[in-house]
């Protein structure tokens, strides 16, 4: 029963071959080109038709002292008239050699250590991470600086020292990824098939660890360039000419010849930026997300116009809720109308992605995504929440309308006590003293069946069990004695016996406070057991609604029938074959033109595929199906 329905926006299935990876932008490719250019400069400096970087221009008369950048010398000249452009091109080599060596050596060591620590865990891991932590405690540049001052700075010293300093960062990142990966079931699956340890590491772990490590390697590469520059700047440069030494040399002349420091500084900045950008791009490759391919355009069909039931506490008319996603605009709720009267419980059922949760969120207006558009009317006790002023809307939410959500732990603020959250909801909406609110909070906790409420009131959510947490969210929802209660999968995260306790509690409280209740669930048996009326959702629409006994007893819509027949039941013979619904739910970006169930419906014909079914009524049941009522009654 625990179909995991995420509260996040339903991302429609990819319907065709999704492109493997996100498209890399212009900046990415510019960065790649720049890196290639710098590498080319580093490799080919001697072969290029450049001036000799050491030729003194003031002697030869070719370049003036402190000559400004121009046609003669692109980047100008220094105090002796040496060509800055040639110097920069030649200066690329040491930095690239150093960075490449450090990144390769430090990176591979770090990856190795990280994979071992993350896969073996236990004591090995603790020791490795302990050492890493101590190494992190050393400010790297201070250490390098000390080492450099004592032994001098040469490639032979800098490469091993910087590589060692780089190891902990790689190890830490790779260890984190490895742990996350190793926890996934596919590692166990491989072991179950008899894969050896080394095979698991090489085939299953390394490919997943490699990309984050490479991404980090690009960032690390840039960091080495910067560090070498900083050392040179402090007077501890390599003996070779580097960008760092050029900047250091130019820095003192910033008034006379600013180009001497600024141009190499800019070269260094651009290079580091390029490496960072490429690293970032590589990181984006890590989670290949399906790109949704849209389908036919939706034809507008006639919308149901239910006569307004004036005695309804909640009355929704033509509600349409949509929001942008990378794959297009998703219309999660598409033309929904429903009424709930005081004292009744409406069960809303449907599969994940059918729009149940979005329907509830459309009433409260609290969405996890940005850019949500709502149209239609949501009238609660005479007030249309969609057109009401923010103040009057706020005054109703949490006050006349109580909300309970699926995962009680995440629905409670983790860093505040149960009591403070209960007190808050009372004090925001009514003038009540802190002490009185606290007394009432304890009373409420008792009322929802929490033993020893006087102690529990000062506890944090994580100190309570799942069932208790859900009781707390119910207490918060009921604190201001609402007239309408919206419950989104209130028991999905709970065990059956606890679910039973919570549903009983909700039913008795519903009676006691005489509330109208909307109970969203994917579990048909919950609706069957606890809802007076039911609305079946499919593809963002209500396809059938009416009193529970009528709809479940004699379903009219083909989807309702199929849903009922595909659910295992306790009163059918053992090993009875279930009527599976083949295929997948429709895309909410570009839903099918006619009936949204047509692709999966055994009774679909041409008309079903092209014309939106009109709303029909049979007794107290409303439905939208061209060929209703031909299933067996259940």
């Amino acid at each position, binding site marked *: 029963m625990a*179909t995991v329905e995420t509260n996040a926006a339903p991302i429609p299935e990819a319907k065709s071959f999704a492109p493997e990876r996100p498209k890399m932008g212009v900046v990415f490719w510019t960065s790649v080109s720049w890196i290639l250019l710098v590498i080319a400069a580093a490799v080919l400096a001697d072969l290029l038709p450049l001036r000799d970087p050491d030729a003194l221009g003031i002697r030869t008369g070719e370049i003036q002292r402190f000559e400004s950048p121009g046609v003669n010398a692109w980047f100008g000249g220094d105090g002796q008239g040496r060509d800055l452009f040639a110097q920069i091109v030649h200066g690329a080599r040491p930095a690239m050699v150093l960075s490449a060596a450090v990144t390769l050596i430090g990176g591979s060591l770090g990856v190795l250590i990280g994979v071992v620590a993350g896969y073996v865990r236990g004591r090995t891991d603790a020791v490795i991470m302990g050492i890493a932590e101590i190494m992190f405690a050393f400010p790297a540049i201070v250490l390098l600086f000390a080492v450099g001052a004592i032994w001098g700075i040469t490639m032979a010293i800098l490469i091993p020292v910087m590589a060692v300093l780089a190891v902990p960062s790689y190890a830490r990142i790779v260890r984190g990824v490895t742990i996350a990966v190793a926890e996934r079931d596919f590692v166990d699956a491989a072991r179950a098939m008899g894969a050896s340890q080394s095979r698991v590491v090489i085939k299953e772990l390394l490919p997943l660890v490699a990309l984050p490590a490479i991404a980090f390697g690009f960032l690390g590469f840039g960091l080495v360039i910067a560090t070498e520059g900083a050392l040179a700047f402090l007077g501890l440069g390599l003996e070779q000419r580097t960008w760092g030494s050029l900047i250091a040399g130019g820095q003192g002349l910033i008034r006379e010849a600013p180009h001497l420091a600024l141009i190499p500084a800019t070269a260094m900045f651009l290079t580091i930026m390029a490496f960072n950008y490429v690293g970032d791009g590589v990181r984006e490759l890590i989670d290949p997300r399906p790109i949704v391919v849209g389908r036919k355009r939706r034809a507008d069909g006639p919308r149901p116009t239910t006569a307004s039931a004036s005695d309804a506490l909640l009355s929704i008319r033509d509600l349409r809720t949509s929001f942008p996603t990378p794959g297009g605009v998703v219309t999660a709720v598409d033309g929904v109308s429903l009424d709930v009267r005081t004292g009744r419980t409406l069960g809303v059922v449907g*599969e994940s992605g059918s729009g149940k949760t979005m329907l509830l969120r459309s009433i409260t207006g609290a969405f996890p995504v940005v850019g949500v558009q709502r149209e239609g009317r949501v009238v609660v006790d005479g007030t249309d929440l969609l057109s009401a002023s923010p103040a009057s809307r706020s005054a109703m939410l949490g006050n006349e309308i109580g909300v309970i959500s699926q995962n009680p732990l995440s629905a409670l603020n983790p860093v505040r006590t149960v009591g403070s959250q209960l007190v808050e909801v009372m004090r925001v909406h009514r003038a009540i003293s802190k002490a009185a609110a606290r007394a009432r909070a304890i009373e409420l906790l008792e009322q929802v069946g929490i033993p020893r409420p006087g102690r529990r009131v000062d506890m944090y959510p994580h100190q309570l069990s799942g069932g208790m947490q859900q009781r707390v969210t119910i207490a918060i929802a009921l604190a201001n004695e609402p007239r309408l209660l919206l419950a989104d999968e209130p028991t999905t995260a709970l065990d059956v016996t606890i679910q039973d306790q919570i549903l009983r509690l909700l039913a008795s409280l519903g009676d006691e406070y005489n509330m109208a209740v909307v109970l969203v669930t994917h*579990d048909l048996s919950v609706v069957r057991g606890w809802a007076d009326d039911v609305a079946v959702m499919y593809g963002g629409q209500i396809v059938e609604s009416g009193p529970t006994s009528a709809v479940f007893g004699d379903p009219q819509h083909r989807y309702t029938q199929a849903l009922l027949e595909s659910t295992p039941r*306790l009163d059918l013979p053992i090993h009875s*074959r279930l009527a599976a619904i083949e295929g997948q739910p429709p895309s909410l970006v570009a839903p099918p033109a006619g009936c949204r169930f047509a692709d999966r419906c055994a009774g679909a014909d041409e008309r079903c595929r092209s014309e939106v079914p009109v709303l029909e009524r049979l007794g107290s049941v409303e439905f939208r199906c061209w060929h209703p009522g031909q299933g067996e009654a259940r």
Partner: protein
Amino acid sequence: MAGTGSAHLRTGDDIVLRVRDLVVEFPAGKGQVVHAVSGVSVDVAQGETLGVVGESGCGKTTLGRAVMRLQDARSGSVEFRDHELTGLEGSELARKRRDMQMIFQDPVSSLNPRRRVRDLVREGLEIWGSQPGPFTDARVEEIMEAVGLGGEGVGERRPHEFSGGQCQRICIARALVMDPEVLILDEPVSALDVSVQAQILNLLEDLKADFGLTMVFVSHDLAVVRNVSDRVMVMYLGKVCEVADTQPLFDTPAHPYTRALLASIPGHELGLSDASTLISGELPSPIEPPSGCRFRTRCPLATNRCAVEEPELREVAVGQFVACHYA
């Protein structure tokens, strides 16, 4: 011994898997242990489906993993076709384990996202291909067809291009390539929608017939378990409460916990009287489970005896074994 005992173990040539007094504990820090599985015995006959039900944390998953030796047991034995599995290591374990395969709850997490579907399904072939056995590419194709993954280009795609139900099909195919005798399924349909769940359940029933499989089906969903199982074991806090053939277990549940579980299913009238089935409170901590009968803190029938004496499984009707003093 609590909810323990082995009166329900059967003898006979057709017993494929036999678990005896299995104990699995996890360290919980400060010298404490989580008693995840505490002396469970059970057997599965050739071609049978054993359903294992119970609430979250009762040790269902741990039992399955320990049988697969993905988890080391503290004591007890697991016999596969009269061969002892406990104690085996290395390549010998790998070879024996081949005859049992496991399907996990989260199909998406069970598939390495970097690999193509065909490579995933062929994995067993890659590991064992050089050895004698049914490991051929033709078989891979046949199995992909059998689980409904036939068709052009499917093998070239990667897991994220598939829905949860299709991913579960891939997992099933991967396991079947190993030509297992026993399939251990840990909540194989819990992450799926009802309509897709029905597809997978039907598929499993078909495959069971076609490939002559024996199955252990772990789930918390009673209706699903009832539909697929021949025999059912009810667990509570690491112990066995009741073992019986499916029909009697659901028609005349004898253990108070089994009755409570069934009565909790909404909208289902079992004719069980409320007072005896309404259980109060919540699951106690598996670190310090109650003495005597572990269910006693929530049991409507509990007496002093239940606190001191641990009930043993005994036969209350033909083929129905219950661990309760008063059943």
